[in-house]
């Protein structure tokens, strides 16, 4: 029965171009557009930023840092208003390869910069410092040919696979600011929660064409029927999840020429998918049990999804929202979903993800139980047309 039910729902969805568009085309389009837009925005923004490097003595490492800041896109030490200052204490070069050398670098900003831009500058400066350290290390172990100029050495470091490694292993703040990591989890989650529309329209169609009445005379209880539907659509969501992950993690970064996303904890990433899908299906069933017409499904299901996405910082980053609005995100299942997904990408431990797992489970189960109650009431009112 379960296999036939899953087969039925899958065929119905695949035959419905609107469902395919909503579940796959829409989130992929958003992933591409937003990643591209954010990548472009960041690149353009960086070109306008003037960084002043202040050091007590000018040495070789300082020169290489300036080169790496320039290759990151910054203007350095230009005669115009300064956006960020990098102050380097004396003796920095001596301690360069020591663990606490970063403490000798002070980064400060102009008051006019937004928190988002400050964060981006900090990340790019950190990348430049990492490259500078790599440069110094390669110099020390004799990896560079002595005849090479500074510019040629900088190119070698920039193209080095070790730099890719450094970029991927950077701290979470850096990783999280990448356009791909900002856009892809968000729009993937957005797509998963849009399962609400196919579920609602199927249920409305079944009610309108008498199929639901017909099914009432079969040996399948309302509880079984709704559970089978939940399982069927969960299977559909798993396929959607895998496809969106594949497209989001591989195709979109390639298309938009952005950094690839690395799943640092594959097991947590996969597990987070189960919790996110459970929550999305519970929510979708609740809306489906609540609405009676296609218009209601679109307005209520689609509307709530868009509202949740906005409040969860998918459209406007949370750190750019007023505090009151940003606090609301903490109560949004989409925010919990995006958060747990990012935990899987960042390589957090299971224990760190437990609060999000609990929130999503409680939300999903609560919605499911409410949906069951509403669905039973609805079927009790069914009569021959």
């Amino acid at each position, binding site marked *: *029965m379960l*296999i*036939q*039910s899953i*087969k*039925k729902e899958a*065929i*119905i969805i695949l*035959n*419905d171009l609107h469902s395919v568009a909503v579940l796959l085309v829409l989130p992929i389009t958003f992933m591409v557009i937003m990643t591209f837009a954010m990548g472009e925005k960041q690149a353009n923004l960086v070109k306008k930023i003037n960084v002043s490097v202040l050091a007590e003595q000018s040495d070789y490492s300082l020169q290489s840092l300036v080169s790496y800041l320039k290759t990151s896109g910054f203007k350095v030490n230009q005669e115009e208003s300064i956006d960020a200052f990098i102050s380097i204490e004396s003796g920095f070069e001596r301690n360069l390869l020591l663990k606490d050398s970063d403490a000798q670098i002070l980064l400060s900003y102009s008051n006019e910069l937004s928190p988002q831009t400050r964060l981006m500058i900090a990340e790019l400066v950190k990348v430049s410092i990492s490259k500078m350290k790599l440069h110094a290390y390669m110099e020390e172990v004799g990896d560079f040919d002595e005849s090479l100029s500074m510019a040629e050495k900088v190119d070698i470091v920039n193209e080095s696979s070790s730099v890719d490694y450094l970029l991927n292993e950077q701290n979470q703040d850096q990783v999280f600011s990448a356009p791909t990591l900002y856009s892809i989890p968000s729009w993937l989650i957005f797509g998963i929660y849009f399962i609400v529309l196919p579920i609602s329209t199927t249920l409305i169609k079944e009610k*309108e*064409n*008498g*199929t639901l*009445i*017909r*099914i*009432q*005379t*079969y*040996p*399948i209880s309302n509880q079984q029927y709704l559970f089978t539907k939940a399982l069927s659509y969960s299977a559909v969501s798993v396929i959607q999840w895998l496809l969106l992950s594949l497209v989001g993690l591989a195709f979109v970064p390639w298309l938009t020429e952005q950094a690839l996303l690395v799943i640092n904890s594959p097991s947590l990433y996969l597990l987070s998918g189960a919790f996110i899908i459970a929550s999305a299906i519970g929510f979708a069933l609740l809306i489906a049990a609540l609405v009676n017409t296609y218009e209601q499904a679109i307005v209520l299901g689609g509307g709530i999804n868009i509202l949740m996405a906005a409040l969860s910082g998918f459209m406007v980053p949370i750190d750019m929202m007023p505090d009151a609005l940003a606090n609301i995100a903490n109560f949004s299942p989409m925010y919990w979903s995006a958060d747990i997904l990012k935990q899987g990408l960042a390589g957090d431990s299971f224990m760190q993800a437990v609060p999000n797992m609990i929130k999503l489970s409680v939300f999903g189960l609560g919605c499911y139980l409410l949906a069951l109650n509403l669905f039973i009431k609805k079927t009790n009112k*069914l*009569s*021959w*047309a």
Partner: protein
Amino acid sequence: MVKQDSQAGQEQLDVIIKADQLVFRYPSNDFSSIDNVTVALKKGKCTGIVGPNGAGKSTLISLLCGLLTPAQGQLSYFVDNENSQTKPAFLTEATNNQVYIEQHIALIPQEYAFYPELTVKQNLQYFIAISERKRDKQASILADSLAQCQLTHVANKKAASLSGGYKRRLNIAIALSKSPDIIFLDEPTVGIDPVSRQEIIDLLKTLKAQGKTLVYTSHMLNEVEQLCDDIILLEQGKALAVSDLTSSNMMITVSFLAHQNAETLRKQLQVLLPDIDSTQPQLNIKIADISQLNAIFACLAQNMSVIKQLHFSQNSIDQLYFSVYHSKQAAQDGAC
């Protein structure tokens, strides 16, 4: 006496669903949608439920097939399971009724109650799967349902692409795939051409001949007449008439000459048919029981000399429908 009891017992056994003084009221209404209706559906027969829009047909069917629960009255289903050790009996407990409905009743709604995105075969496979039929029997049930409704050659076609007639057949095939004893049909021929309609009527006749019990609602009274053995005429939630169409539709109209012997005939007919008003110049004699015919004909034959005109007619269901409906309207107008 013994013979009469046996006959009554047999009639009792023939009843497959008994509804006794059913009352149902929708919460939003201040009147009863079904008001004290008593009906008995006979095994292997087709019962037509007719009446104007809003008469309560849908509500009565919903009650009979367990979709709604009556506020008052009792609904019972007759069970005679050959494989069971238990004696044939009427089930009345709601839980038992639900099991009975799941095992024995199928619905054919007026709408195309299936999934247009699926093929004919996939639709049937789904409904067979949820009817919990044994896996090894599912293939043969599928083949039988397709063959019976002449759908085998379109089995792999998408349901949405079928013509209206084939969609109607699929609607029926899904019901048959449940192997039901009782089938409730709601206007199963709406929106299709006359040839397809007749094919569906013929299919339903075949089902009846196979012993299936059919409950049929339709505004097409000629279809009801073709198919149905019994008719329940509903108006404003009340059963105005519950008739056996095989015997109750014969009418004899007798006009008398102004002859003194006519009085003798009138008196003799009054004895045979106590309900008639023998003083009327023209007698309309409705034959409720075919066994009365011989006595009535003998009486008329003995008194042919005083009969001015003798007319035999068979009431169509239309006449029955309109006579009952109009007399009810007239009674209501009079009351006002």
